């Protein structure tokens, strides 16, 4: 009997520390959040049970709808850009030149920065008058000296600012995924296509891109998921402005919970985000499994 128990005790000892932290900090909050969302709950603690009021409020709260819309706007503008730019950079940095390593390092380097430093640099880059971008546009004579683009104030330009900053800062990650997929394409296939008379462009569109399809699906999903989680760079660059026009969902959740001390309502809003992200992650798992089977 003692011998039979031995593997259990050993396994328990090995698993327990991880199990405890995982349960307390990953799984428990998901359950606790449901409970919180059915209550009026301030930073100080529980006040009273209010049923689904926090959820019905979502439909009439203009700020919530606005924040959700802003998050979707960000996803729709930024995610496709991230995928396309990643692919282009990967193709450029995978060409057999002496610059290969230099190019990869340059394209990836901004990824090393933390969100606060990247946002911080972006704030000064896009600032009018002495900022770098307007300065370069003036310096190269692309913009009249008296014109100053208000990258952070104009409600259309501000999305260009946030989106281009996000691409600059994070595209290296997807590029690396593409490069590793490109390296898995055997050179014989391309050689065979070339012997059959396919031009470089034909090889790209009829051989390379179709072979990259599983990676493209993966990159699309990873980027859509990452874009739905947007918070730091918007919060730090525009603060959600001008006039809440860029405030993303997570920022509204954060402000509701910690500035307005309405944890219950913030928890209810979180589940909208939670639901969107779970569906996307399930889709991602499905695509990955499918990709692995095809290999």
């Amino acid at each position: 009997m003692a011998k039979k128990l031995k593997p259990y005790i050993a396994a328990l000892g090995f698993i327990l520390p991880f199990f405890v932290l995982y349960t307390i900090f990953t799984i428990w909050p998901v359950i606790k959040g449901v409970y919180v969302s059915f209550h009026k709950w301030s930073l100080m603690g529980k006040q009273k049970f209010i049923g689904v009021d926090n959820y019905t409020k979502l439909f009439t709260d203009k700020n919530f709808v606005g924040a959700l819309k802003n998050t979707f706007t960000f996803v729709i503008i930024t995610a496709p850009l991230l995928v396309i730019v990643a692919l282009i950079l990967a193709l450029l940095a995978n060409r057999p030149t002496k610059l290969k390593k230099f190019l990869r390092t340059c394209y990836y380097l901004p990824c090393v920065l933390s969100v606060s430093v990247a946002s911080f640099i972006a704030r000064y880059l896009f600032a009018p008058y002495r900022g770098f971008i307007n300065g370069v546009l003036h310096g190269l004579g692309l913009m009249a000296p008296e014109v100053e683009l208000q990258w952070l104030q104009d409600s259309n330009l501000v999305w260009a600012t946030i989106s281009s900053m996000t691409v600059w800062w994070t595209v290296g990650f997807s590029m690396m995924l593409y490069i590793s997929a490109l390296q898995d394409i055997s050179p014989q296939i391309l050689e065979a296509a070339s012997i059959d008379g396919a031009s470089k462009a034909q090889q790209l569109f009829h051989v390379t891109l179709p072979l990259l399809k599983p990676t493209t699906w993966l990159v699309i999903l990873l980027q859509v998921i990452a874009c739905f989680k947007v918070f730091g760079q918007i919060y730090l660059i525009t603060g959600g402005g001008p006039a809440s026009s860029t405030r993303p969902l997570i920022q509204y959740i954060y402000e509701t919970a910690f500035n307005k001390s309405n944890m219950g309502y913030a928890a209810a809003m979180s589940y909208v985000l939670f639901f969107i992200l779970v569906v996307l992650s399930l889709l991602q798992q499905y695509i990955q499994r499918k990709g692995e089977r095809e290999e």
Partner: protein
Amino acid sequence: MKTKAVIGKVVLTVISVILALIFIAPLIWSLAVSFQIEGKQIVSVWDWFKLPYTIHNYIDIIKTSAVPIWTINSLVIAVVSTALTVILSSMAAYAIAKIKFKGRNLIFFYFLLGLLVPGEATIVPLFITANNLNMIDTYAGLILPSIAGSMNMIIMVSFFKGLPNELIEAVRIDGGGELAVFFRIILPLSKAVISTVCIFAFIGSWNNYLWPLLCAMSQSKFTLPIGIPTFAGTYTIDYVKPLTAGMVASLPMIILFLIFERHIVEGVTMSGIKG
């Protein structure tokens, strides 16, 4: 036909180099600004790059600001998080991969669920939980929630499963316990996967923003990502000090990246494929 191909190649190379310069230009500009004398008259953008340079800003930041404290906090938190992540994840992964016991598939499934839980969507209840445990504004609160992540564990399980059972059995037959197997066989054979998880955990912790923003209340507990943006409020008139602080916060990571580029790239692709 041939000249056309050569021209095409040159054009692509030129484009790729221009893009590379665009990608690093913001960093080079920030670096140049950080070496400028504060209060310098800036007429055109090129003035930011002109001599004379000074390292006075760096000395000032290190001597008079809280940046050194935040750096130490970031370092301590990142090192402890990384160590705990590697130890706890590899232990759990070992049990799941190599010890036969009933219910291990169930436990593994339970650990897989974490892949679906977006941390960003549970910050409110996580804050309440940490608060109940009196962990807000403590190092424990900053460190512990990020330790037990599903992904690191899963990467390790799939790696450990590939290790040969014969070696493990040999140690067990010699009377060695599971600890002996773990320390003498598993860990030495797993340097590759451990270094990947290390790099990941370290970068993740170093750059973590949302949780420390909630958890660190007092300046003395701030990490660099939380502290650096407070500079923007205090010194908006001049770019020099804030960008110097940004550089102080980033240079260690940039240097680490340049040294460990190959490992980091491998880790990135692995996480993308497994994640």
